[in-house]
């Protein structure tokens, strides 16, 4: 499991986006769960073996992502490991991708697939200062 540097992430103000994002997410949540976004891993088990060779691992620690940005090949996925003392969650609200995970307890992992190319902002609904820029090529 790779651990990136813990960076203090500066974040553009995403609050108006969040309000719209919440509406879109609520409408699209069910679709997103059954669609191309991944399902959260079972609570006590470690993440199941990767279905893709190109998996990036990002850690959640100290209420921040371990990296400010990450590159993923199209169709690849990111595994988010909660290495923190706090409950986290992962959501993406961008044109072209909409995803919302369940709450992620400390020690839990969540895998998110990125089937579309583009640039996406991954956030945590609980901790608004958490941002991860994902560049999918």
């Amino acid at each position, binding site marked *: 499991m790779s651990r990136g540097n813990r960076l203090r992430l500066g974040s553009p103000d995403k609050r108006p986006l969040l309000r719209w994002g919440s509406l879109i997410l609520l409408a699209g949540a069910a679709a997103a769960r059954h669609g191309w976004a991944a399902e959260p891993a079972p609570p006590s088990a470690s993440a199941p073996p990767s279905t893709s060779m190109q998996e990036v691992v990002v850690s959640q620690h*100290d*209420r921040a992502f371990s990296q400010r940005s990450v590159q993923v090949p199209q169709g690849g996925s990111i595994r988010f490991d909660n290495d*923190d*003392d*706090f*409950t986290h969650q992962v959501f993406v609200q961008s044109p072209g991708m909409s995803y919302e995970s369940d709450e992620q307890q400390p020690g839990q992992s969540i895998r998110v697939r990125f089937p579309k190319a583009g640039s996406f902002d991954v956030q945590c*609904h*609980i*901790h*608004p*200062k*958490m941002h991860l820029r994902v560049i999918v090529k």
Partner: protein
Amino acid sequence: MRTLLTAILLGCTAGTPARCANSLYDQLGAAPGVHRIVDATLRRYYADPRLHDDFDNINQVWLQPRFETFICHVTDGPCQYRGRSMAASHRGLHITQARFNAVVEDLQDGMDDAGVPFRLQNRLLARLAPMERDIVTR
């Protein structure tokens, strides 16, 4: 144990359930009352410079309903609190006694804003005070 004593003194035992309707939750105004208290209190937490490091990275939309459920639960209201323990949920914040007391003071001010009488405020504080030893880790 003191709750049991009070219950007996008020004649509020299993034999006389009718008189037991007045839980602390009810006295605080039930759901609307708790909402008023939590709303006013969170407003203060988010504006308190002493608590900036604790609240500047937590979403109020996420926190508020959980805080209300928690207050409902500790005041014998009809709520199931499914969150983590006070110790577990605060461990990573390294709360000092001074910051804990700032939170209590802001809660007192929030209850003032919500019009809760002083002696009734103390009944809620009495339920929360023992959590200090679980929440304060520094």
